[in-house]
Structures are given as structure tokens and as C-alpha cells.
């Protein structure tokens, strides 16, 4: 039995490897700080972040629109004024709610966030939340925790292997445990694996919620915005077409492991109680998003979760703006979903869009197609003609001309 005990002791020793304490302890990082030692794990994380940032700058996903980027950066600076000069913000064209700040100060805000925030205050809370992760150096702690878990898992694997020497019961398991560990454990060197150090603990997420809330209110925004934006993510997910999604607890981002429902939401609601209203910045926000709204909705539709997209559209419609674009995309949801009765729903949505000043020109093309399907030839011709009048350079002009010809023939004119 002695060799086993020795090995077990050594392996357990591994699991208890001390982590070096961050020089900052639990305090917020001061502005302009760079990790002093490129040989340290923080230095490695910084370097990995630099490389990930370079990749983001070259990425096909990058949304280079200067006005949009400047606007989002301005909101960041309102809630994180002390880091405003340190951070570089990149809007990425990805239809998911997500925002991350890397340890070197590079921020990604995905366009799915911009679609779902209803006003500037909600975006401000999200950015304040992310800034708090950055300010409290959560990434380095997350990386160290990951390392410890890996060491622990390795230790367990070795104990089991040692057990195999004496017991034989774990013989096959130990080898596969170790190889699956290698597969599961994230390569935290660089690039896509940057995600590996955004898996924060529950305490870190609570801290970031709290910090985000404090930054929100300090900047004069409405305190209710914090709980509002998390609650809407929960509600959106509850409307998903997919049962698995409906049953999964909603989270605040792609890498967030911790549910919004329950204590996180309750805490933020509680914090907002008794505090006076603040700035929502709804009109400012909608004005900044307006030029991109159609593209954001088109991207969201690519996910093909019509229940969720319809939920988002309906919430935005309730605010009264952008009725043309929103109703058009409502129509698109039904057109693409193609369920029973969806053609009628699509028609109603496009007709609603057509009454609004900001209706996309494609509204009339879709109306023409639907009227044609329903053998309403006169209405179809009128709609197609409107489309061609409004879009003289339409790339499918020849197809519409063909349809008009067909309709004229069928009408016998």
C-alpha cells in the first residue's frame, strides 16, 4: 500500500498548489495600469488579449461604422470615465447578447446587445457590468481558478491511476479521464480561447452586477434599467421556438455561466427600490440605432428563432418608433417561418408597415408576392408597381417585370 500513499500524497500536493496573489488584492485597478511582468500569468493573459484584439480588428465580423462605434464608446465613457482613455471598443456584427472586456482593455460589444437594449440606460448598465469585471481583475482570478481545477482534475486522475495499480477497477478510466481533460480544458493561450478566461464565478457576476448598478446610478441613469434589461433577456428566452432554450435559465452573455433569474434579478430590483428615476436616454439611443435597425433584425432572423425575434420586435414596437421597419421585419418572421396561417399574419404585418413613413422599399415587393399568391391581381400589380417606382435600381427588377406581365395576362388586360 505504501507506493499508493506516496503517489496520492504527491498528487494531492499538486492540487493544493498555491496561486500567486494578485498585487492588487480586491481593489479596483487604477487607470493606465499595465502588468509589470510579462513572465507572470497576468502578463500572459495581457499578451493573449493583445493577440485576440488584433484578430478582432481584422475580423470579418467587425462593424467598422465610426458613428456607431463612437456612440457606444461615449456610453462606456459615461459609466467608466476613469478608464475611458484606456479602453478600445469594437462593435462586432453578431446577433447575440454579449459584451466582454479583456484584461488589456479591449471591449467587444455584439450587435445583438444593441438590438435588445431598449434605451441608453440599459446599454450603460451592460457596459458598467463589463467594466466592473475589468476593474476588479476578474479575468486573472478566473484563469487561476481554471488552472487550479485543472491541477485538481489531474491530481484526481493520477490518484485514480495509482488506484489502478492496486485495485484495477479504474484502469481504463484513468487514461480516458486524462485525455478528456486535455480535450475539455481550454487552451488559454490566445484567440478563440480568450473566452476561457471570461467564465466568471457566481460571486464575480454578482459583484459585476453591483458595480454595474453603481456606475449606472452614478452617471445619472435610471436605476430600474439594470433589472429591466436582465428581465427582458429572461422573457425573450421564454418565447423561444425551441423547448430546450425555453427550459435553459437565461444568462447575461455567451460566456456567463450564472442564471439571471433568482437572486441576480432580485438584488437589482431591490437596489432600485426607493431610488428616484433617472435618465433613460431612449430617444437618443433609438436615433443612434435607427440606421442599423434593419441590418440588426436581418441578422437576428438568421438565427431562425422566430419566437424570440418576434418578442424583440414587439417590445420595440410598443415604444412607438420605427413602425415601418419593425412591422416589415415582423412580416419577414412570418414569411420565413412559413407555418400554418403565417401567410395571413405576414400580409397583415407588411400592410401595417406600408402605412409608416420608414417602411423599407421591399415591403411592397413582399405585398405584391402575397397578393399574387392570393390571386388578388389588382392589388398585386399596384404593390409591385410601387416597389419598382420606389426602387428603380432593384436587382430583381426583371423578375418583378415578369410577374407584372403574368398578372396583366391573367387579368386579361
Amino acid at each position, binding site marked *: 500500500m505504501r507506493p499508493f500513499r506516496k*503517489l496520492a500524497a504527491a498528487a494531492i500536493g499538486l492540487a493544493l498548489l498555491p496561486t500567486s496573489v494578485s498585487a492588487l488584492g480586491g481593489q479596483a485597478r487604477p487607470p493606465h495600469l499595465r502588468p509589470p511582468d510579462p513572465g507572470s500569468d497576468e502578463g500572459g493573459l495581457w499578451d493573449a488579449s493583445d493577440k485576440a484584439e488584433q484578430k478582432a480588428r481584422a475580423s470579418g465580423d467587425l462593424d467598422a461604422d465610426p458613428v456607431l462605434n463612437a456612440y457606444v464608446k461615449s456610453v462606456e465613457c459615461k459609466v467608466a470615465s476613469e478608464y475611458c482613455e484606456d479602453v478600445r471598443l469594437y462593435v462586432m456584427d453578431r446577433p447575440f447578447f454579449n459584451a466582454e472586456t479583456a484584461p488589456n482593455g479591449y471591449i467587444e460589444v455584439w450587435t445583438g446587445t444593441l438590438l435588445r437594449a431598449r434605451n441608453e440606460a440599459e446599454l450603460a448598465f451592460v457596459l458598467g457590468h463589463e467594466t466592473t469585471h475589468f476593474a476588479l481583475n476578474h479575468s486573472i482570478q478566473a484563469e487561476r481558478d481554471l488552472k487550479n481545477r485543472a491541477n485538481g482534475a489531474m491530481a484526481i486522475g493520477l490518484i485514480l491511476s495509482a488506484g489502478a495499480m492496486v485495485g484495477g477497477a479504474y484502469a481504463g478510466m484513468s*487514461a480516458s479521464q486524462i485525455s478528456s481533460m486535455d480535450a475539455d480544458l481550454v487552451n488559454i493561450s490566445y484567440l478563440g480561447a480568450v473566452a476561457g478566461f471570461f467564465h466568471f464565478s457566481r460571486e464575480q457576476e454578482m459583484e459585476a452586477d453591483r458595480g454595474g448598478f453603481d456606475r449606472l446610478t452614478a452617471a445619472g441613469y435610471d436605476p430600474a434599467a439594470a433589472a429591466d434589461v436582465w428581465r427582458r433577456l429572461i422573457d425573450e428566452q421564454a418565447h423561444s421556438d425551441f423547448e430546450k432554450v425555453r427550459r435553459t435559465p437565461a444568462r447575461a452573455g455567451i460566456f456567463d455561466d450564472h442564471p439571471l433569474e433568482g437572486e441576480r434579478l432580485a438584488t437589482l430590483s431591490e437596489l432600485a427600490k426607493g431610488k428616484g428615476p433617472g435618465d433613460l436616454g431612449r430617444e437618443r439611443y433609438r436615433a443612434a440605432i435607427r440606421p442599423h435597425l434593419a441590418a440588426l433584425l436581418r441578422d437576428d432572423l438568421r438565427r431562425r428563432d422566430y419566437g424570440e425575434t418576434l418578442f424583440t420586435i414587439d417590445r420595440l414596437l410598443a415604444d412607438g418608433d420605427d413602425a415601418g421597419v419593425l412591422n416589415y421585419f415582423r412580416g419577414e418572421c412570418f414569411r420565413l417561418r412559413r407555418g400554418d396561417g403565417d401567410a395571413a399574419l405576414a400580409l397583415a404585418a407588411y400592410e401595417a408597415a406600408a402605412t409608416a413613413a420608414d417602411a423599407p422599399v421591399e415591403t411592397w415587393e413582399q405585398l405584391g408576392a402575397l397578393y399574387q399568391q392570393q390571386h388578388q391581381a389588382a392589388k398585386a400589380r399596384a404593390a409591385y408597381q410601387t416597389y419598382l417606382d420606389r426602387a428603380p435600381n432593384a436587382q430583381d427588377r426583371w423578375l418583378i417585370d415578369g410577374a407584372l406581365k403574368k398578372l396583366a395576362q391573367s387579368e386579361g388586360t
Partner: protein
Amino acid sequence: MRRWGIIAACLSIAACTTTQVKLADSIERPAPTSRMLVLQPDVQLSIITAGGLLEARADWSTQARDNIAAAVRSALDGKGLKYSALDPSSVESGRNAQLLRLNNAVGQSILIYNYGLVLPTHKAAFNWTLGDGVKSLGDTYGGDYALFINARGSYSSDTRKAVMVIATLVGVSIPTGGQSLVASLVDLKTGRIVWFNVAQASPDADMRSPEGAQKLLAEVLKSAPF
């Protein structure tokens, strides 16, 4: 797969760097007056933690990058060739950025289809190109040929080495790390990849040290057409 068996066996013996070279046929050897555009080597070195994670080491990567660049410079000096350096991260947009990204795609394709799977359309000669749009790179940055070097390495930490000892005792084999380097030479008039080399370095050609990098580069550049 026999190739990999040989390489694995080789790595377990003390000192051998193995290289697998591809040379395009019917190319002109670079004239002695050729100018080389040396792209800053893309080097990423990591330490393997006890638990088997690869943890980036910024200091090693920078060191090795500088060592390799210095080794390249002395090799080119030795051949009397003129050269200039280019940091690819400074090329952010426009045609030159597209050419560098295309070079990455071509390099990946060469690795998959010349060192792994077989493409029937690339069986005979080594024939890969970036197209003659590369003239843009030559015109902008000056150079008749571009030299690209990528290196990756992972090295066991001391605790990892301790783990390896334990692992060996219980009969488990775990990844120990290694160094690999890929080098390619592109003709900036035609776009052809005239030379491509994949090297697996032995531990005594440790690119973290200037001498190790010199040794590794000497092996790698042995087969270069200049």
C-alpha cells in the same frame, strides 16, 4: 502516418531537428541581388501547467521572436542578401492586408494537403500561389521575395515535469510539449510559394535562447533556395 512515427521516435532521441521540405519546381533561384522582405516571425510559446493547460508566456514568445529574427538576419547576412522587416500587424486594411490573409489560407492549405491529406490536383508538383497581386506587397514594402516564419512551442513547467514523473510511474503518458516551426518563401513577382518547410525542433534547439534559435534556423534554412 509512418512519417509521424519516425518523427516521434526521433524526438525521443537527444538531438535531432526534423524538417520536411517542399520546393516548387522550375523556379529561378533568388539572385544574389534579391531583396528579402522578412515578415516579423509569428511566435507563440506556452508553458504547460501541471494540469495540462497551455498558458501563454508573453516573455518567451517575444524572446523567441527576437531570437529567430536575429538568426534569420545573420543567415541572410551570411549569404550577402539585402533584407527589410515588416510587422504584419501594421498592415490592417487594403490589398496588402488581403494578401497576408490569403497567405495564411494558402499556408494552412499546404499544411493540410501536402503534409496530411492528399489532393489529387496537387499530387505531382508543389504548386501553390498567391497570384501576381503580390506585386502590391513588393511595391509597397520593397522586396523580391517574402519570408514568412511561424513558430509554436510548449514547454513543461517544473511541476508539470513532476507530474510527468508520477504519470510515468502509473503508466500514463501525457503530452510533454515540443517546438514546431513553419517557414515559407514567396516570389513577390509571381506569387508562387517557392519553398515551404515544416520543422519539429529537438529540445536542444530551444528557440528561447539565441543559440537555440540559431541552431534551429540553420537546420530550417539549409534547404532554402537562396
